[in-house]
């Protein structure tokens, strides 16, 4: 499956948007946190998990989805939220904890919910899989269209929820696709040190579903594999496990010294940054030129700056609003 010119530009634009958003979050996050790194300080307090480097996974999969399709994402959700079409102003405001945020500040960066585009994420490894299976079951029972996609890191493949959910989805032949973003590291522990198989897509065999491996963080390779898996789900052919070899350019979380990485790994990864690489592909294909690329980048940056200003200019809910919305 090959992307159209429009799809290729869409994927590139969303990668650029996500990357610039995270570049800005990274710098704002550090405000108030130097020289003493106190996580509670600054305009964006709390834990922060950046996804830069992993953008191809989000755009290659979400290029095949519409608002009615369901996505459950992880503690590292920004790139997927952007690609799924989560409302950007409200998302950034939620990351700042503001009243205008997706959830009025009740959730924050690891708990982004946008029911308008059926997006949710959870801070617990592997726990988005069950809900994705349930959303797929819901569509089947209601006779409604739409598929569910559960994103996870490679560490989640060692969680019980992974095995239970894959089995259940396969037993009931549900329209769900499981996507592993394999960035090689579970916080500081290398995949090889904690995973008994060289590649997690092999585990699909245990559940009688196709397991597909996409090497090299390749945007269009991901697009092709995801396209087939999602099309199969839509046709009622059941679930697929998709394993994508990707990498994170940053640490597990902000403030991570990344001492666990072998010497030179990070520098090597910078050389393989998927965004300049895809830009080069699109330039070579004649879909971009220097001018149109600059315009695209400027537009993405302007969009992000608008969202950040919106968040910065928004108020917090009153402290007592903490008591609201426990129940509806």
């Amino acid at each position, binding site marked *: 499956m090959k992307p159209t010119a429009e799809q290729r530009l869409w994927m590139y634009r969303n990668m650029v948007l996500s990357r610039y958003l995270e570049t800005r979050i990274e710098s704002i996050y550090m405000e108030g946190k130097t020289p003493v790194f106190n996580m509670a300080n600054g305009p964006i307090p709390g834990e922060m998990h950046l996804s830069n480097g992993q953008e191809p996974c989000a755009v290659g999969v979400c290029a095949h989805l519409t608002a009615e399709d*369901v996505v*459950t994402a992880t503690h590292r959700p920004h790139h997927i939220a952007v690609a799924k079409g989560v409302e950007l102003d409200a998302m950034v405001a939620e990351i700042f904890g503001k009243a205008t*945020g*997706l*959830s*009025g*500040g*009740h*959730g924050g960066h690891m*708990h982004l*919910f946008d*029911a308008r585009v*059926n997006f*949710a994420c*959870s801070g*617990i490894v592997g*726990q988005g*899989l*069950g*809900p*994705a*299976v*349930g*959303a*797929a*079951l*819901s*569509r089947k*029972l*209601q006779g409604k269209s739409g598929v*569910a996609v559960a994103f996870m890191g490679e560490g989640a493949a060692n969680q*019980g*929820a992974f095995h*239970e*959910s894959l*089995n*259940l989805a396969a*037993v*009931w032949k549900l329209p769900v696709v499981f996507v592993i973003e394999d960035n090689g590291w579970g916080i500081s522990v290398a995949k090889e040190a904690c995973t008994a198989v060289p590649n997690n897509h092999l585990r699909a065999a245990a559940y009688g579903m196709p397991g597909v491996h996409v090497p090299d963080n390749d945007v269009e390779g991901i697009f092709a594999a995801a396209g087939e898996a999602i099309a199969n789900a839509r046709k009622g052919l059941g679930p697929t496990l998709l394993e994508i070899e990707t990498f994170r350019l940053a640490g597990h979380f902000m403030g991570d010294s990344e001492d666990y990485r072998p010497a030179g790994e990070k520098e090597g990864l910078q050389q393989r940054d998927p965004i300049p690489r895809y830009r080069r592909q699109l330039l070579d294909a004649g879909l971009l030129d220097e001018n149109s690329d600059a315009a695209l980048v400027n537009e993405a940056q302007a969009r992000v700056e608008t969202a950040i200003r919106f968040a910065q200019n928004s108020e917090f809910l009153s402290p007592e609003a903490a008591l*609201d*919305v*426990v*129940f*509806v």
Partner: protein
Amino acid sequence: MTTKKATRKLTIARAMAEAIAQEMRIDPRVFVMGEDIGPLGGVFGTTRGLITEFGTERVRDTPISETAFIGAAVGAASDGMRPIVELMFVDFFGVCMDAIYNLMAKNTYFSGGKVRVPMVLMTSTGGGYSDAGQHSQCLYGTFAHLPGMKVVVPSNAYDAKGLMTAAIRDDNPVVYMYHKSLQGMGWLGTEKGATVAVPEESYTVEIGKAAVVRKGNDVSLVSLGAGVHHCLRAAEVLQKEGFSAEVLDLRSLVPLDREAVRASVGRTGRLIVVDEDYHSYGVSGEIIATVVEHNHTCLKAAPKRLAYPDIPIPFARPMEQWALPNADKIVDAFRQMMLNQ
């Protein structure tokens, strides 16, 4: 036939199944998932007959994968369905608590109230039949402690049907904890008082409202589930001794009807809480705090609690029976209270 309508009785198991069936008839969003809830009808009879009427799409036997199917219920509920899932024994929450307390109970809050999770998690509680410590716990306090889920505990079939209907119609997650000894399954040593007259038509019992099931003036016996029946038996004994005990059935732990507790103790001046869940950090302490934080001067005596000791539930019958609350212990507690007053 008015005689019949007024007198037809049901076991709690049948009352639960009847409520589910009636809701499934009027609401296509309602469906049931769990282990052995299909042709077997639920190990504790909660889904008996449903698969015959509604088929395997809406009455789904699951793999023994509580994390997956309870998580799936969260996903289906968030997507417009109204799932009912059964966790066969509440003791099994250890293998699936993330789906329950981090997803089911928190997604509404984290979404700022925009995502609704209308699901019922029904689960069996309680011991007394030598099933030992991994199949006999109540854990009421554990679930009621964690915010974001309503918790109900019926003591009789009338409340069981009405609370189930209310739980299914609620837009919030409801944990529905039914005590095995009340189910009407004879092999669990059935409490006869739980099998009561139940209207055939659909009705709700409001979640969050306690019930005075016996009026009295000298002491408030506050309990839930099977404990209510111990209290009623104790009240009979105390009546013969010249005391009138009021029995309050909490019915819901979240929300908790604190006003009803305070009103009862305000009248009687004495409080004994009976709870089959663990003694410390639990329901019994919460009930006492509900009264004394509000007004300690209404008490004529220090309040007492009869709860399960802080021990894993033992297998051997003499040890287990020794540890469980019962009517004799309640009567003794009242006598002690009067002596020490």
